[in-house]
Protein backbone atom coordinates (compact mmCIF):
# COMPACT_ATOMS: atom_id res chain seq x y z
CA UNK A 1 0.00 0.00 0.00
CA UNK A 2 1.26 3.46 -0.92
CA UNK A 3 2.03 5.97 1.82
CA UNK A 4 0.70 8.92 -0.19
CA UNK A 5 -2.86 10.13 0.23
CA UNK A 6 -4.97 13.05 -0.96
CA UNK A 7 -7.99 14.97 0.31
CA UNK A 8 -10.90 16.56 -1.50
CA UNK A 9 -9.48 19.91 -0.37
CA UNK A 10 -6.44 19.19 -2.58
CA UNK A 11 -3.97 18.44 0.16
CA UNK A 12 -1.54 15.56 0.16
CA UNK A 13 -0.48 13.44 3.13
CA UNK A 14 2.72 11.41 3.08
CA UNK A 15 3.00 8.95 5.96
CA UNK A 16 6.41 8.09 7.36
CA UNK A 17 6.15 5.80 10.38
CA UNK A 18 3.78 7.49 12.77
CA UNK A 19 4.26 10.90 11.20
CA UNK A 20 2.15 12.52 8.47
CA UNK A 21 3.69 15.22 6.28
CA UNK A 22 1.03 17.48 4.77
CA UNK A 23 1.26 19.72 1.73
CA UNK A 24 -0.94 21.02 -1.07
CA UNK A 25 -1.35 19.29 -4.41
CA UNK A 26 -0.04 20.56 -7.69
CA UNK A 27 -3.63 21.23 -8.72
CA UNK A 28 -4.10 23.39 -5.61
CA UNK A 29 -1.02 25.50 -6.27
CA UNK A 30 -2.00 26.02 -9.89
CA UNK A 31 -5.49 27.13 -8.84
CA UNK A 32 -4.11 29.51 -6.22
CA UNK A 33 -1.62 31.17 -8.55
CA UNK A 34 1.28 33.16 -7.11
CA UNK A 35 1.70 32.06 -3.50
CA UNK A 36 3.02 34.98 -1.49
CA UNK A 37 2.76 33.86 2.12
CA UNK A 38 2.45 30.70 4.17
CA UNK A 39 1.36 30.94 7.79
CA UNK A 40 2.59 27.99 9.84
CA UNK A 41 1.07 26.61 13.06
CA UNK A 42 2.77 26.53 16.46
CA UNK A 43 4.93 23.51 17.27
CA UNK A 44 3.41 21.04 19.75
CA UNK A 45 -0.16 22.19 19.08
CA UNK A 46 -2.65 19.38 19.33
CA UNK A 47 -5.02 19.30 16.40
CA UNK A 48 -8.08 17.34 15.30
CA UNK A 49 -9.34 16.47 11.84
CA UNK A 50 -10.67 19.63 10.19
CA UNK A 51 -8.65 22.11 12.26
CA UNK A 52 -6.75 24.82 10.43
CA UNK A 53 -3.02 24.09 10.63
CA UNK A 54 -1.83 26.88 8.42
CA UNK A 55 -2.85 29.36 5.78
CA UNK A 56 -1.63 29.50 2.20
CA UNK A 57 -2.04 32.95 0.70
CA UNK A 58 -1.96 33.84 -2.97
CA UNK A 59 -2.05 37.41 -4.23
CA UNK A 60 -5.84 37.24 -4.35
CA UNK A 61 -6.87 35.09 -1.41
CA UNK A 62 -6.06 33.35 1.85
CA UNK A 63 -6.85 29.62 2.06
CA UNK A 64 -6.80 27.58 5.23
CA UNK A 65 -4.91 24.32 5.35
CA UNK A 66 -7.28 21.93 7.14
CA UNK A 67 -5.64 18.89 8.61
CA UNK A 68 -7.13 15.57 7.50
CA UNK A 69 -5.51 13.81 10.48
CA UNK A 70 -5.48 14.30 14.25
CA UNK A 71 -2.35 14.52 16.33
CA UNK A 72 0.44 16.85 17.43
CA UNK A 73 2.37 19.32 15.29
CA UNK A 74 5.95 18.04 15.37
CA UNK A 75 7.57 19.80 12.43
CA UNK A 76 6.90 22.95 10.45
CA UNK A 77 8.61 23.84 7.18
CA UNK A 78 10.18 27.19 8.03
CA UNK A 79 11.71 27.49 4.55
CA UNK A 80 8.24 28.47 3.37
CA UNK A 81 8.21 31.57 5.58
CA UNK A 82 10.85 33.20 3.41
CA UNK A 83 10.21 31.32 0.18
CA UNK A 84 6.47 30.65 -0.17
CA UNK A 85 6.97 30.37 -3.94
CA UNK A 86 8.47 26.90 -3.32
CA UNK A 87 4.88 25.66 -3.28
CA UNK A 88 4.38 26.95 -6.82
CA UNK A 89 7.68 25.51 -7.97
CA UNK A 90 7.13 22.00 -6.60
CA UNK A 91 4.06 21.49 -4.46
CA UNK A 92 4.58 17.77 -4.00
CA UNK A 93 8.17 18.14 -2.79
CA UNK A 94 7.49 20.87 -0.25
CA UNK A 95 5.58 19.76 2.80
CA UNK A 96 4.07 22.44 5.05
CA UNK A 97 3.57 20.70 8.37
CA UNK A 98 4.20 17.28 9.97
CA UNK A 99 1.79 15.78 12.48
CA UNK A 100 2.46 12.89 14.87
CA UNK A 101 -0.62 10.75 14.32
CA UNK A 102 -2.91 10.04 17.23
CA UNK A 103 -5.51 8.16 15.17
CA UNK A 104 -4.13 6.11 12.31
CA UNK A 105 -7.67 5.31 11.18
CA UNK A 106 -7.96 8.91 9.96
CA UNK A 107 -6.01 7.81 6.89
CA UNK A 108 -8.64 5.32 5.79
CA UNK A 109 -11.01 8.06 4.66
CA UNK A 110 -8.45 9.60 2.31
CA UNK A 111 -7.95 9.01 -1.40
CA UNK A 112 -4.93 7.31 -2.91
CA UNK A 113 -3.20 8.90 -5.89
CA UNK A 114 -5.33 7.06 -8.44
CA UNK A 115 -8.59 8.04 -6.74
CA UNK A 116 -7.40 11.62 -6.53
CA UNK A 117 -6.65 11.72 -10.25
CA UNK A 118 -10.19 10.50 -10.91
CA UNK A 119 -11.54 13.07 -8.47
CA UNK A 120 -9.63 15.81 -10.33
CA UNK A 121 -11.10 14.56 -13.59
CA UNK A 122 -14.54 15.30 -12.21
CA UNK A 123 -13.53 18.51 -10.50
CA UNK A 124 -11.39 20.07 -13.21
Amino acid at each position, binding site marked *: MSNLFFTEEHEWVRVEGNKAYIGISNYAQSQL*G*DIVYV*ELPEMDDEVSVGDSVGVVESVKSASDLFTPVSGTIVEINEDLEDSPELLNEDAMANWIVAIELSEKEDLTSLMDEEDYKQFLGEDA
Partner: protein
Amino acid sequence: MSLKRTPLYNKHKEAGADVVEFFGWEMPMTYTKLSEEHEAVRRAAGLFDVSHMGEIYVEGKDSAVFMKKMFSNNLEKVADGAIAYGFFLNEKGGIVDDLLVYRRNENSYLCVVNASNTDKDDAWLRAHQEGFDISIDNRSDDIAEVAIQGPKAQEILQKVTDFDLDTLPFFHFKEDIVVAGVSCLISRTGYTGEDGFEIYFGNDDAQKVWDALFEAGEGVLKPVGLGCRDTLRFEAALPLYGNELGDDISPLEAGFGIFVDKEGTFIGSDVMRAQRAGELSRKLVGLELLDKGIARHGYPVYDENDKEIGFITTGYKSPSLDKVIANALIEKDGPSIDDIVYVGIRSKKAKAKVINKRYLHKNTKK
Protein backbone atom coordinates in the same frame (compact mmCIF):
# COMPACT_ATOMS: atom_id res chain seq x y z
CA MET B 1 -30.30 34.37 -11.57
CA SER B 2 -28.12 33.55 -14.55
CA LEU B 3 -24.77 35.21 -14.88
CA LYS B 4 -24.10 37.77 -17.58
CA ARG B 5 -21.40 37.23 -20.16
CA THR B 6 -19.58 39.91 -22.11
CA PRO B 7 -19.34 39.55 -25.91
CA LEU B 8 -15.71 38.54 -25.34
CA TYR B 9 -16.53 35.57 -23.11
CA ASN B 10 -15.55 33.03 -25.77
CA LYS B 11 -12.23 34.79 -26.30
CA HIS B 12 -11.45 34.40 -22.60
CA LYS B 13 -12.37 30.74 -22.63
CA GLU B 14 -10.26 30.11 -25.75
CA ALA B 15 -7.32 31.85 -24.09
CA GLY B 16 -7.68 29.53 -21.10
CA ALA B 17 -8.67 32.24 -18.64
CA ASP B 18 -9.81 31.46 -15.12
CA VAL B 19 -13.34 32.84 -15.43
CA VAL B 20 -15.02 33.77 -12.14
CA GLU B 21 -18.24 35.35 -10.96
CA PHE B 22 -17.92 39.08 -10.43
CA PHE B 23 -21.08 40.92 -9.31
CA GLY B 24 -23.33 38.87 -11.57
CA TRP B 25 -20.86 38.69 -14.47
CA GLU B 26 -18.60 35.90 -15.66
CA MET B 27 -15.27 37.67 -15.95
CA PRO B 28 -11.65 36.60 -16.49
CA MET B 29 -9.66 36.74 -13.22
CA THR B 30 -6.35 35.65 -14.76
CA TYR B 31 -5.17 34.20 -18.06
CA THR B 32 -1.73 33.03 -16.89
CA LYS B 33 -0.45 34.35 -13.57
CA LEU B 34 -1.56 37.51 -11.85
CA SER B 35 2.02 38.68 -11.27
CA GLU B 36 2.93 38.22 -14.94
CA GLU B 37 -0.15 40.12 -16.09
CA HIS B 38 0.55 42.89 -13.58
CA GLU B 39 4.13 43.23 -14.87
CA ALA B 40 2.96 43.19 -18.50
CA VAL B 41 0.86 46.31 -17.84
CA ARG B 42 3.67 48.08 -15.94
CA ARG B 43 6.35 47.26 -18.52
CA ALA B 44 4.58 46.82 -21.89
CA ALA B 45 0.82 46.61 -22.39
CA GLY B 46 -2.22 44.64 -21.32
CA LEU B 47 -5.76 44.46 -22.65
CA PHE B 48 -8.69 44.21 -20.23
CA ASP B 49 -12.24 43.30 -21.12
CA VAL B 50 -14.23 45.76 -19.02
CA SER B 51 -17.52 45.35 -20.85
CA HIS B 52 -19.21 44.78 -17.49
CA MET B 53 -18.87 48.49 -16.67
CA GLY B 54 -22.11 50.47 -16.85
CA GLU B 55 -22.82 53.24 -19.36
CA ILE B 56 -25.70 55.56 -18.54
CA TYR B 57 -26.48 58.54 -20.79
CA VAL B 58 -28.14 61.60 -19.26
CA GLU B 59 -29.41 63.91 -21.96
CA GLY B 60 -31.82 66.76 -22.56
CA LYS B 61 -32.47 70.41 -21.91
CA ASP B 62 -32.11 70.14 -18.12
CA SER B 63 -29.24 67.66 -18.03
CA ALA B 64 -26.67 70.21 -16.86
CA VAL B 65 -28.75 71.23 -13.84
CA PHE B 66 -29.67 67.61 -13.14
CA MET B 67 -26.03 66.50 -13.19
CA LYS B 68 -25.15 69.43 -10.96
CA LYS B 69 -27.61 68.10 -8.40
CA MET B 70 -26.44 64.48 -8.68
CA PHE B 71 -22.65 64.68 -9.19
CA SER B 72 -20.03 65.86 -6.67
CA ASN B 73 -17.62 67.40 -9.16
CA ASN B 74 -18.18 70.61 -11.09
CA LEU B 75 -19.05 69.77 -14.69
CA GLU B 76 -19.28 73.45 -15.63
CA LYS B 77 -15.49 73.55 -15.46
CA VAL B 78 -15.23 70.56 -17.77
CA ALA B 79 -14.97 71.27 -21.50
CA ASP B 80 -16.96 69.35 -24.10
CA GLY B 81 -14.88 66.27 -24.90
CA ALA B 82 -13.36 66.14 -21.41
CA ILE B 83 -14.01 63.82 -18.48
CA ALA B 84 -14.49 64.38 -14.76
CA TYR B 85 -14.09 61.82 -11.97
CA GLY B 86 -16.43 62.18 -9.02
CA PHE B 87 -19.22 60.68 -6.96
CA PHE B 88 -22.93 60.27 -6.64
CA LEU B 89 -23.41 60.95 -2.93
CA ASN B 90 -26.35 60.06 -0.73
CA GLU B 91 -27.99 62.53 1.69
CA LYS B 92 -25.70 61.38 4.50
CA GLY B 93 -22.56 62.08 2.48
CA GLY B 94 -21.89 58.40 1.80
CA ILE B 95 -21.05 57.26 -1.70
CA VAL B 96 -23.68 55.74 -3.99
CA ASP B 97 -20.98 55.20 -6.61
CA ASP B 98 -17.78 56.63 -8.02
CA LEU B 99 -17.80 57.29 -11.72
CA LEU B 100 -16.44 59.06 -14.75
CA VAL B 101 -18.64 61.62 -16.45
CA TYR B 102 -17.89 62.20 -20.13
CA ARG B 103 -19.17 65.66 -21.11
CA ARG B 104 -20.36 65.32 -24.73
CA ASN B 105 -21.95 68.77 -24.70
CA GLU B 106 -23.95 70.92 -22.30
CA ASN B 107 -27.01 68.71 -22.84
CA SER B 108 -25.43 65.26 -23.02
CA TYR B 109 -23.40 63.34 -20.46
CA LEU B 110 -22.15 59.76 -20.42
CA CYS B 111 -21.77 58.30 -16.92
CA VAL B 112 -19.41 55.30 -16.75
CA VAL B 113 -20.20 53.48 -13.52
CA ASN B 114 -19.17 50.35 -11.63
CA ALA B 115 -20.70 47.08 -12.84
CA SER B 116 -21.61 46.28 -9.24
CA ASN B 117 -23.63 49.51 -8.98
CA THR B 118 -25.11 50.00 -12.44
CA ASP B 119 -28.67 49.05 -11.47
CA LYS B 120 -28.44 51.03 -8.22
CA ASP B 121 -27.15 54.11 -10.08
CA ASP B 122 -29.84 53.84 -12.72
CA ALA B 123 -32.52 53.67 -10.01
CA TRP B 124 -30.87 56.50 -8.07
CA LEU B 125 -30.88 58.82 -11.07
CA ARG B 126 -34.48 57.95 -11.95
CA ALA B 127 -35.60 58.51 -8.37
CA HIS B 128 -34.44 62.13 -8.65
CA GLN B 129 -35.41 62.98 -12.21
CA GLU B 130 -38.89 64.34 -11.51
CA GLY B 131 -39.23 67.93 -12.67
CA PHE B 132 -36.21 67.75 -14.97
CA ASP B 133 -36.58 67.68 -18.73
CA ILE B 134 -34.09 64.86 -19.30
CA SER B 135 -33.81 61.30 -20.53
CA ILE B 136 -31.88 58.61 -18.69
CA ASP B 137 -30.70 55.86 -20.99
CA ASN B 138 -28.89 52.89 -19.46
CA ARG B 139 -27.08 51.39 -22.45
CA SER B 140 -24.84 49.05 -20.46
CA ASP B 141 -26.20 45.91 -22.11
CA ASP B 142 -25.44 47.16 -25.62
CA ILE B 143 -22.00 48.67 -25.10
CA ALA B 144 -18.77 46.72 -24.82
CA GLU B 145 -15.54 48.21 -23.48
CA VAL B 146 -11.88 47.28 -23.45
CA ALA B 147 -8.99 49.03 -21.70
CA ILE B 148 -5.54 48.94 -23.27
CA GLN B 149 -3.06 49.98 -20.61
CA GLY B 150 0.70 50.30 -20.28
CA PRO B 151 3.67 52.18 -21.77
CA LYS B 152 3.18 50.45 -25.15
CA ALA B 153 -0.60 51.04 -25.27
CA GLN B 154 -0.52 54.06 -27.57
CA GLU B 155 1.94 52.50 -30.01
CA ILE B 156 -0.29 49.44 -30.40
CA LEU B 157 -3.61 51.28 -30.63
CA GLN B 158 -2.15 53.73 -33.14
CA LYS B 159 -1.55 50.85 -35.55
CA VAL B 160 -5.28 50.20 -35.90
CA THR B 161 -6.62 53.76 -36.13
CA ASP B 162 -5.93 56.79 -38.32
CA PHE B 163 -6.87 59.13 -35.50
CA ASP B 164 -3.73 60.81 -34.11
CA LEU B 165 -3.68 59.67 -30.47
CA ASP B 166 -1.13 62.36 -29.61
CA THR B 167 -3.97 64.87 -29.91
CA LEU B 168 -5.92 63.20 -27.09
CA PRO B 169 -4.85 64.45 -23.63
CA PHE B 170 -5.37 62.57 -20.35
CA PHE B 171 -9.03 62.53 -19.26
CA HIS B 172 -10.29 63.51 -22.72
CA PHE B 173 -12.27 61.50 -25.23
CA LYS B 174 -13.27 61.44 -28.85
CA GLU B 175 -16.28 59.79 -30.47
CA ASP B 176 -16.76 58.16 -33.88
CA ILE B 177 -13.13 57.10 -34.11
CA VAL B 178 -12.61 54.17 -36.43
CA VAL B 179 -10.59 51.36 -34.85
CA ALA B 180 -10.12 48.29 -37.02
CA GLY B 181 -13.11 49.35 -39.12
CA VAL B 182 -15.33 49.80 -36.06
CA SER B 183 -16.73 53.12 -34.87
CA CYS B 184 -15.61 53.66 -31.28
CA LEU B 185 -15.44 56.14 -28.44
CA ILE B 186 -11.86 56.42 -27.18
CA SER B 187 -10.77 58.06 -23.95
CA ARG B 188 -7.29 58.45 -22.50
CA THR B 189 -8.24 57.01 -19.14
CA GLY B 190 -7.63 53.90 -17.11
CA TYR B 191 -7.44 52.24 -13.75
CA THR B 192 -3.81 51.16 -13.55
CA GLY B 193 -1.65 54.25 -13.01
CA GLU B 194 -0.20 53.72 -16.48
CA ASP B 195 -0.88 55.55 -19.72
CA GLY B 196 -3.61 53.96 -21.77
CA PHE B 197 -7.01 54.12 -23.36
CA GLU B 198 -10.52 52.91 -22.76
CA ILE B 199 -12.39 52.03 -25.93
CA TYR B 200 -16.19 51.71 -26.17
CA PHE B 201 -18.11 50.10 -29.02
CA GLY B 202 -21.19 48.01 -29.77
CA ASN B 203 -21.32 44.42 -28.50
CA ASP B 204 -21.40 43.01 -32.03
CA ASP B 205 -18.01 44.54 -32.85
CA ALA B 206 -16.23 43.42 -29.71
CA GLN B 207 -14.43 40.39 -31.09
CA LYS B 208 -13.26 42.33 -34.13
CA VAL B 209 -11.66 45.07 -32.00
CA TRP B 210 -10.19 42.51 -29.58
CA ASP B 211 -8.56 40.49 -32.38
CA ALA B 212 -7.26 43.56 -34.22
CA LEU B 213 -5.55 44.87 -31.08
CA PHE B 214 -3.81 41.55 -30.46
CA GLU B 215 -2.72 41.38 -34.06
CA ALA B 216 -1.28 44.90 -33.79
CA GLY B 217 0.36 44.12 -30.48
CA GLU B 218 1.66 40.68 -31.32
CA GLY B 219 4.42 39.62 -28.95
CA VAL B 220 3.84 42.66 -26.73
CA LEU B 221 0.18 42.92 -25.76
CA LYS B 222 -1.14 40.42 -23.22
CA PRO B 223 -4.74 39.70 -22.23
CA VAL B 224 -5.01 40.65 -18.55
CA GLY B 225 -7.71 39.94 -16.01
CA LEU B 226 -9.54 41.49 -13.10
CA GLY B 227 -6.94 40.07 -10.70
CA CYS B 228 -4.19 42.42 -11.79
CA ARG B 229 -6.68 45.22 -12.41
CA ASP B 230 -7.09 45.31 -8.63
CA THR B 231 -3.37 45.13 -7.72
CA LEU B 232 -2.53 47.77 -10.36
CA ARG B 233 -5.18 50.25 -9.24
CA PHE B 234 -4.28 49.68 -5.60
CA GLU B 235 -0.59 50.44 -6.14
CA ALA B 236 -1.61 53.60 -8.01
CA ALA B 237 -3.75 54.73 -5.01
CA LEU B 238 -6.97 54.50 -7.04
CA PRO B 239 -9.96 53.54 -4.90
CA LEU B 240 -12.35 50.63 -5.42
CA TYR B 241 -16.02 50.89 -4.54
CA GLY B 242 -16.74 48.35 -1.80
CA ASN B 243 -13.22 48.76 -0.40
CA GLU B 244 -12.05 52.37 -0.04
CA LEU B 245 -15.47 53.76 -0.98
CA GLY B 246 -18.96 52.78 0.11
CA ASP B 247 -22.46 53.82 1.19
CA ASP B 248 -21.11 54.58 4.67
CA ILE B 249 -17.77 56.14 3.71
CA SER B 250 -17.40 59.81 2.84
CA PRO B 251 -15.12 60.76 -0.06
CA LEU B 252 -13.40 63.22 2.29
CA GLU B 253 -12.55 60.42 4.72
CA ALA B 254 -11.17 58.39 1.85
CA GLY B 255 -8.97 61.34 0.84
CA PHE B 256 -10.73 62.19 -2.42
CA GLY B 257 -11.94 65.68 -1.51
CA ILE B 258 -10.50 67.18 -4.70
CA PHE B 259 -13.34 65.47 -6.57
CA VAL B 260 -15.95 67.12 -4.37
CA ASP B 261 -16.80 70.66 -5.43
CA LYS B 262 -16.42 72.97 -2.42
CA GLU B 263 -18.93 75.56 -3.60
CA GLY B 264 -21.53 73.46 -5.40
CA THR B 265 -24.96 72.43 -4.20
CA PHE B 266 -25.65 68.76 -4.84
CA ILE B 267 -27.02 65.83 -2.88
CA GLY B 268 -24.73 65.45 0.14
CA SER B 269 -23.01 68.83 -0.29
CA ASP B 270 -24.19 70.11 3.12
CA VAL B 271 -22.60 67.08 4.80
CA MET B 272 -19.39 67.65 2.82
CA ARG B 273 -19.25 71.26 4.02
CA ALA B 274 -19.80 70.22 7.64
CA GLN B 275 -17.08 67.60 7.32
CA ARG B 276 -14.66 70.12 5.86
CA ALA B 277 -15.42 72.38 8.82
CA GLY B 278 -14.19 69.69 11.17
CA GLU B 279 -16.83 66.99 11.47
CA LEU B 280 -14.70 64.27 9.96
CA SER B 281 -14.05 61.18 12.03
CA ARG B 282 -11.90 58.92 9.86
CA LYS B 283 -9.03 59.01 7.38
CA LEU B 284 -7.55 56.63 4.84
CA VAL B 285 -3.86 55.85 5.35
CA GLY B 286 -1.26 53.61 3.78
CA LEU B 287 0.45 50.87 5.76
CA GLU B 288 3.59 48.85 5.19
CA LEU B 289 3.69 45.57 7.09
CA LEU B 290 6.87 45.08 9.11
CA ASP B 291 5.92 41.62 10.40
CA LYS B 292 5.13 38.73 8.10
CA GLY B 293 1.60 38.26 6.81
CA ILE B 294 -0.82 39.80 4.34
CA ALA B 295 -3.23 42.48 5.54
CA ARG B 296 -6.49 41.92 3.71
CA HIS B 297 -9.79 43.74 3.24
CA GLY B 298 -11.77 43.83 6.49
CA TYR B 299 -8.96 42.96 8.91
CA PRO B 300 -8.99 45.13 12.08
CA VAL B 301 -6.31 47.73 12.81
CA TYR B 302 -5.11 48.54 16.35
CA ASP B 303 -3.00 51.34 17.77
CA GLU B 304 -0.02 50.79 20.08
CA ASN B 305 -2.34 50.66 23.09
CA ASP B 306 -4.26 47.77 21.51
CA LYS B 307 -7.30 49.91 20.84
CA GLU B 308 -9.16 49.04 17.64
CA ILE B 309 -9.02 52.13 15.43
CA GLY B 310 -10.24 50.94 12.04
CA PHE B 311 -9.93 48.34 9.33
CA ILE B 312 -8.06 47.41 6.17
CA THR B 313 -9.79 48.44 2.93
CA THR B 314 -7.36 46.77 0.51
CA GLY B 315 -4.08 44.94 1.10
CA TYR B 316 -1.67 42.96 -1.03
CA LYS B 317 1.85 41.85 -1.39
CA SER B 318 2.52 44.49 -4.02
CA PRO B 319 3.80 42.85 -7.20
CA SER B 320 5.68 46.00 -8.25
CA LEU B 321 7.22 46.86 -4.87
CA ASP B 322 7.60 43.34 -3.44
CA LYS B 323 6.36 44.60 -0.07
CA VAL B 324 3.16 43.96 1.83
CA ILE B 325 1.17 47.20 1.77
CA ALA B 326 -2.40 48.07 2.66
CA ASN B 327 -4.90 50.88 2.84
CA ALA B 328 -6.61 51.35 6.18
CA LEU B 329 -9.56 53.51 7.17
CA ILE B 330 -8.77 54.64 10.73
CA GLU B 331 -9.77 57.24 13.30
CA LYS B 332 -8.87 60.72 12.14
CA ASP B 333 -6.91 61.60 15.27
CA GLY B 334 -5.18 58.22 15.24
CA PRO B 335 -1.68 57.35 14.05
CA SER B 336 -0.05 59.25 11.19
CA ILE B 337 3.00 58.84 8.92
CA ASP B 338 5.78 56.73 10.48
CA ASP B 339 3.64 55.72 13.48
CA ILE B 340 3.32 52.04 14.36
CA VAL B 341 0.00 50.20 14.22
CA TYR B 342 -0.98 46.54 14.39
CA VAL B 343 -3.13 44.57 11.95
CA GLY B 344 -5.19 41.69 13.29
CA ILE B 345 -4.40 38.78 10.97
CA ARG B 346 -6.42 35.84 12.24
CA SER B 347 -5.12 35.15 15.78
CA LYS B 348 -1.99 37.30 15.43
CA LYS B 349 -1.26 40.99 15.43
CA ALA B 350 1.23 42.02 12.78
CA LYS B 351 3.25 45.21 13.22
CA ALA B 352 2.91 47.82 10.49
CA LYS B 353 4.05 51.36 9.82
CA VAL B 354 1.89 54.19 8.49
CA ILE B 355 3.24 55.36 5.13
CA ASN B 356 2.14 57.61 2.28
CA LYS B 357 -0.49 55.70 0.31
CA ARG B 358 0.82 56.94 -3.01
CA TYR B 359 2.88 53.79 -3.22
CA LEU B 360 3.92 54.16 -6.80
CA HIS B 361 4.73 56.97 -9.17
CA LYS B 362 2.00 57.18 -11.81
CA ASN B 363 2.96 57.18 -15.47
CA THR B 364 -0.23 58.67 -16.86
CA LYS B 365 0.10 61.45 -19.44
CA LYS B 366 -0.66 65.05 -18.53
